[in-house]
């Protein structure tokens, strides 16, 4: 597939059959306004310069491309490089999107920012930009996730955000998104909803992809400089799929580069206890988009299982659904145990503690690297840092801090 033929989303906000705008009528005008605003500014020089400046001085971009030398040696196969999104301000790739969206909110004259969060990384990244721009900020977070990710909850509060505990449904990310939608429909005039993944109704999957694609754009330049060529494989974890979309998108036309998304396999895909809709789901409509979902025969959304709150989501961005069906991206799954194992591996051998989400991508790299030629190059998107997960890892392993 060449990028020339790849021109998604189309004018209806679709990626093939996926995507769209399946929301209540009340939200259509807000989505139209966002789409219009984004179309106007996305090629505007002063807007691009403003985003660039924020990415450099507030986020700390570009993020380095790091050679994981000891881990590579231990695994004894392909060279593993890490794209260090964990070094961004607030500790993950999520801030790439929020610095852009908050500027869109200001262009639209919105004074109030809402967001959903699972692991808390998107909540923190949203709270940080809201603080910087002096905007009111409310973060919706499932009760179960509040428990799993308490350091991030306090961080959001310190940044001046109100954290709203969601106790409906499964009390995780999907329910936080439902509640954010309910708030948005009520306060649509003065509120911008910063969705944190390449999910939701059009134009969100496009906007979040575009703001995150700085990761892939930088990697292209760094590959040429540091490696002298593009990597053979790029691996990223996929929940909603924003870090993966960000690093994959600029490489879609480069067919020599294998793109691999890794979903949360929970207790194993065959167990049914996972959060891997692309590996073991079916097509449906949720949160404004047509995409692969984990659902039962009657179309009820199923509970998901993952050690990582950020991947614990029953859907996935619509562009990933398209890329799965087209075959351009291969989707795999890593289990909780495999992710935990790689979490420790990287921490001990490289002195870098990855987020549990990211650990799923690392787990797949660990699985394939030993059997690959030593000249092959794998880049893993190190999407976030793992400090937030320490208490949870300790708990899973029966320790108390």
């Amino acid at each position, binding site marked *: 597939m060449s990028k020339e033929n790849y021109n998604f989303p189309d004018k*209806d906000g679709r990626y093939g059959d996926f995507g*769209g*705008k*399946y*929301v*209540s*009528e*009340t*939200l*259509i*005008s*807000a989505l139209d306004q966002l789409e219009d605003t984004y179309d106007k500014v996305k090629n505007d020089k002063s807007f691009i310069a403003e985003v660039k400046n924020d990415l450099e001085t507030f986020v700390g971009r570009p993020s380095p491309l790091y050679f994981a030398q000891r881990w590579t040696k231990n695994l004894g196969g392909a060279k593993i490089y890490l794209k260090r999104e964990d070094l961004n301000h607030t500790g993950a790739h999520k801030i790439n999107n929020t610095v852009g969206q908050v500027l869109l909110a200001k262009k639209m004259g919105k004074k109030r920012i809402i967001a959903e969060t699972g692991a808390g990384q998107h909540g923190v990244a949203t709270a940080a930009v809201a603080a910087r721009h002096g905007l009111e900020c409310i973060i919706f977070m499932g009760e179960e996730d509040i428990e799993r990710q308490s350091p991030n909850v306090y961080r959001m509060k310190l940044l001046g955000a109100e954290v709203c505990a969601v106790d*409906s*449904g499964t009390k995780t990310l*999907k*329910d936080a998104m*439902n509640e954010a*939608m*309910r708030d948005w*429909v*009520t*306060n*649509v*005039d003065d509120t911008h909803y910063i969705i944190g993944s390449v999910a939701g109704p059009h134009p969100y999957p496009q906007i979040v992809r575009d703001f995150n694609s700085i990761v892939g754009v930088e990697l292209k330049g760094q590959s040429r400089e540091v490696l002298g060529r593009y990597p053979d494989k790029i691996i990223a974890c996929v929940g909603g799929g924003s870090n993966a979309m960000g690093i994959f998108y600029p490489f879609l036309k480069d067919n020599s580069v294998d793109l691999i998304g890794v979903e949360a396999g929970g207790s194993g895909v065959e167990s049914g206890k996972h959060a891997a809709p692309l590996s073991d789901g079916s097509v*449906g*409509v*949720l*949160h*404004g988009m047509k995409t692969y*979902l984990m*659902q039962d*025969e*009657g*179309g*009820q*959304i199923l509970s998901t299982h993952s050690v990582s709150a950020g991947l614990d989501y029953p859907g996935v961005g619509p562009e990933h659904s398209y890329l799965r069906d087209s075959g351009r991206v291969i989707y795999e799954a890593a289990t909780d145990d495999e992710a935990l194992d790689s979490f420790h591996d990287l921490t001990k051998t490289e002195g870098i503690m990855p987020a549990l989400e990211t650990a799923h991508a690392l787990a797949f790299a660990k699985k394939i690297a030993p059997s690959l030629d030593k000249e092959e190059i794998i880049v893993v998107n190190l999407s976030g840092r793992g400090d937030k997960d320490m208490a949870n890892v300790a708990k899973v392993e029966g320790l108390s801090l």
Partner: protein
Amino acid sequence: MNAIHKVFDSLKKNNRKALITYSIAGDPDLDSSEKIIRNFIHSGVDIIEVGVPFSDPMAEGPSIQLGHERALKNNISLKDILEMCFKIKKDHPNVPIVLMGYMNNFLSLNENLFSELKKHKIDGLIIVDLPYVESTEFLKKLNKEGIDLIRLISPTTTNERVSKILSSSSGYLYYISLKGVTGSELKVSDELEKRVLSIKEQTDLPVVVGFGIKDAITAKKMSFCSDGVVVGSLLVDEISKFSSKEDNIMNKKLTSIIDELKEGIA
């Protein structure tokens, strides 16, 4: 002329406004929800909206969210709901039954959906998360079976989109009275009345008002400018107070609420 059309025709002749109820199939259980609907019909409700419970009811306020959760605990499926509606339609062919729910549940029947709806005598659908822009194909298939897609219009719908929506509507139009979820607090205003009247000027279809109508006085006010009102959260809240073993007392209570509402809008 289908059942919805007939009902509004006869209401107009008698200078009356429609009372439309919303209750959730399977709440508190399937048999009781059937009894509730039959009781609504006996109490003189004009159109029955049947909520199809969904695991992620994004547009609902707390009352109806909890109703969906109660129904799903009973493992209610769309097929069960269709069977229930069919039984009711057998006895009351002239009372329109409109299913209201979310796209994903309707998609679960795939292409069979349209013939199944027809087979079970469903008169119309309201799909909360299927806005005008996404509905073209779906609408064609529904209309082929003679089933109405009831469109929603909200305070944020631009005039331009209102005319697009009107150009492909049938049955009736559902005006969402407020920016918010179901069961929010409704403040009746001149602006609201003007908007409903302006929509009515642009169409021959009946326009009903829903969201936040929780007492006879509000129902009365909203029926002045419209062709009818939808009452949901008020009834679902009442239903939540009873277990399925208390059918009789629950239905007595519901009848008195319906009587009061009917008196308001008469």
